[in-house]
């Protein structure tokens, strides 16, 4: 008995009053065309088809796919394997349940219980199975299904299906976010602390420079008064020339040229001092260490003369580009030179010399300040860079401490070598700045 015959019988038995049409034995192309003609509102029930009237064999799935693709109306099915291919729903017998049923009866038979043929049941009871995706496709209300109908392919929301994994993931992500925030906060705090430390360092360095300026007052006054004095005398001379007879224009022109030159010289001194003493934003720039020596040549020279010390300042032959704060490096030089001048304050005149020299060392630019003073006692050598350590009656003990702080803030090192016969040698070494491209020459 074919599925169609069974269906006819079942329909007759249940006295179904709707018109029923059987599409049997049609070749696939014709069948698909017929299905496409079915108006919306009709019900298509796919039983199966293995062969057409010409004996051409088909696979049931192939036929079903063609029908579902062409249909303008929901297709229902009668076999479990068809559920999922586009069938909306069906009263189907589970193949799995059927297998279990038969297996159970076979096991019983093998155990020796000969079954009564009338008791042998080969069909599992039919169940309602629906395809949630197909229901949605045809806008059929799920709630109208029998309550015991199994719904397959329902889209369980992902969060309900994998809630453990999702929860775990959320916890992990939240944990990571918290960690990141904590790290960012820590980084900000560290940055703030670094900035605060840098500001304090700059403040201290600035205070140190003001102290140094106090010590250099005489030299500064000299450096400014010298050009001012020359300007005044030139102006006075010009005044007198105007009262004298004859053409004095050439002389007056020379006087004006000198006044102009001296004026610029005085303002240059003041510009240097302002840079040295004013507050400034500590900003690393690249410059030549030799320029620092040139910056301070006149003021330190004046101070040396005031103290009766022979000061020799020798720049290096080559450029010594370093990266840092030029003002603070000037401060290092001033501190070391004043320190050296203090050291030779009491020694015989022949030894009252201070030598500043620059050179390229093994790992950077070396600023060396040598004096021929009495040297530092070994017991003091380890402590001279400590804050508030001083052997001078008027010393605060901050000069060398600030000096070391500045040198180390520039990734440099400072060391001291001392000998009662030779004097003391301070060497500050700064890493050389890598030129932007090896070929780019550094401005000398």
């Amino acid at each position, binding site marked *: 008995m074919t599925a169609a015959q069974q269906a006819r019988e079942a329909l007759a038995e249940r006295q179904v009053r709707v018109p029923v049409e059987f599409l049997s034995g049609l070749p696939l192309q014709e069948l698909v065309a017929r299905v496409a003609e079915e108006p919306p509102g009709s019900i298509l029930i796919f039983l199966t088809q293995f062969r057409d009237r010409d004996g051409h064999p088909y696979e049931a799935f192939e036929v079903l796919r063609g029908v579902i693709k062409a249909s303008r109306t929901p297709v229902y099915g009668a076999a479990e394997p068809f559920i999922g291919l586009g069938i909306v729903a069906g009263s189907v017998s589970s193949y799995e349940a059927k297998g279990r049923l038969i297996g159970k009866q076979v096991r019983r038979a093998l155990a020796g219980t000969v079954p009564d043929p009338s008791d042998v049941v080969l069909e599992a009871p039919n169940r309602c199975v629906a395809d949630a995706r197909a229901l949605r496709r045809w806008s059929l209300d799920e709630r109208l299904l029998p309550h015991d109908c199994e719904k397959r392919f329902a889209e369980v929301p992902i969060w309900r299906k994998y809630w453990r994994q999702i929860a775990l993931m959320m916890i992990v992500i939240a944990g990571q976010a918290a960690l990141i925030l904590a790290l960012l906060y820590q980084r900000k705090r560290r940055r703030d602390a670094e900035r605060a430390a840098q500001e304090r360092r700059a403040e201290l360095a600035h205070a140190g420079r003001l102290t140094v300026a106090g010590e250099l007052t*005489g030299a500064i*006054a*000299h450096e400014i*008064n*010298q*050009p*001012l*004095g*020359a*300007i*005044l*005398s*030139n102006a*006075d*001379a*010009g*005044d*007198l*020339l105007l009262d*004298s007879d004859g053409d004095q224009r050439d*002389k007056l022109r020379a*006087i004006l040229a*000198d006044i102009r*030159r*001296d004026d610029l*010289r005085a303002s240059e001194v003041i510009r240097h001092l302002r840079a040295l003493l004013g507050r400034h934003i500590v900003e690393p720039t690249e410059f030549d260490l030799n320029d620092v020596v040139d910056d301070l040549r006149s003021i330190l020279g*004046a101070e040396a*003369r*005031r103290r*009766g010390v022979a000061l020799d300042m020798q720049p290096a032959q080559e450029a010594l580009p370093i990266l840092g704060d030029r003002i603070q490096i000037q401060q290092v030089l001033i501190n070391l030179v004043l320190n050296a001048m203090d050291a030779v304050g009491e020694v015989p005149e022949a030894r009252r010399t201070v030598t500043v020299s620059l050179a390229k060392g093994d790992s950077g630019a070396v600023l060396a300040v040598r004096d021929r003073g009495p040297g530092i006692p070994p017991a003091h050598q380890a402590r001279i860079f400590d804050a508030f350590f001083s052997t001078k009656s008027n010393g605060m003990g901050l000069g060398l401490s600030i000096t070391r702080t500045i040198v180390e803030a520039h990734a440099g090192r400072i060391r001291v070598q001392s000998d009662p016969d030779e004097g003391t040698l301070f060497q500050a070494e700064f890493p050389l700045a890598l030129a932007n491209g090896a070929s780019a020459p550094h401005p000398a």
Partner: protein
Amino acid sequence: MSTTPLIHVVDDDPSMRAALLRLLDAAGFDARGYSSTGEFLLQTLPERPGCLLLDLRLPGPSGLELQAALQQRDVRLPIVFLSGHANVAASVRAMKAGAVDFLTKPVKRDILLDAIGRALERDAMQRTARQKADLLRARFESLTERQRQVFERIVAGRLNKQIADDLGVAERTVKREREQVMVKLEASSAAELGRLAELLLHPAAN
């Protein structure tokens, strides 16, 4: 021997030195510049009236050291000091050692020229005094041994008779020598002879 004064300017700062020389020149003085104490000492000082305008702070020996060195050599050129800034200790030292003035740069023309004027005045006075002393010494040296002995005793306040006894000669001889001394030293009284004796012993005190 030129009689116009020559002013020596010692300052290591070239533009300051040039300006000072120019000002002195415009004010009608002869002036000469030096960059260090050494340069000044190396020249032979011309026999001219003048003074020294000296920077306090110089490379090598300072202005104060030059002042001391000149005193040792008995060079009596009056000194006006110039200093880059007010320095009490140095100014006291300089003035005690006989400086005419101690000026601070920048210096006003009137003050500078006034100090220069006083220095030249002092130089002129010193020169006059020295000339007088030289003249006096020359006259004194023209006295004979006997006349000198008589002079010393007159100045010491002894009477002719006592001098005659001291020297073992007649009073008449003492009288004659005494007249000769008065003529040679161009003195008119015993009191004036005393003053001249004072000058001979301490020529610089006047």
